């Protein structure tokens, strides 16, 4: 599955997107955040405060308990500040 990062999440992770293959035990968005946090210092820094991280699956906002099964693209980003 493809993962994208935006704004300071992107800056902290150090890349804009990547393809990942999490284990089957990673079922939800919050599971995925925990799994990504364990991939190294940059990820740990990006996801150090999970409650401020917003997520979207296939271009739609989702909550932390959303299932990731079947997702083509998951994005992580801070609260939005457009407009």
């Amino acid at each position: 599955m493809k993962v994208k990062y935006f704004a300071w999440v992107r800056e902290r992770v150090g890349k804009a997107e990547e393809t990942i293959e999490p284990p089957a035990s990673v079922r939800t968005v919050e599971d995925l955040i925990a799994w990504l946090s364990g991939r190294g210092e940059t990820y740990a820094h990006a996801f150090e405060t999970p409650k401020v991280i917003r997520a979207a699956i296939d271009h739609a906002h989702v909550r932390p308990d959303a299932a990731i099964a079947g997702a083509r693209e998951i994005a992580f980003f801070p609260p939005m500040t457009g407009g």
Partner: protein
Amino acid sequence: MSCPVTIRIQNADFDIAREIAALTASRTDIGAVVSFSGICRGDKQDAKIAALTLEHYPGMAEEEIGRHVDEAVARWPLHGVTVIHRVGRLTPGENIVLVLTASVHRQAAFQAAEFLMDYLKTSAPFWKKEESPIGTGWVEAHARDDQALERWTKS
């Protein structure tokens, strides 16, 4: 009743008069047009701002705005909606965002424009980074924007 919808995300500036003309041209069923333009300010509290850089999530940004425009069209009798959001580096005084709504009556046009702006602020995937003499940093989301959004929730 047709309601043409235009949604664009672009680096270039927009021309409000041309966008209004495009919305109202050759129609005589529009009685009210509301436009909102958001402009890059040169200061915030006491800090000077040199520039803003707008980042967005291509694909999702257009879809998310489209969903909220659809909801506005379902809630109010609109005859046209235009949303243009700029991205890239913008300096003080430059336009950031344009929302145009056209309707028979003013209340629908005002309410739909406010609704769309409240959603753009809080749920469209755009992020602002500010440059000031003391450094650069990402703009934090405002609690007041989340509060502004709550009034549109159907009870």
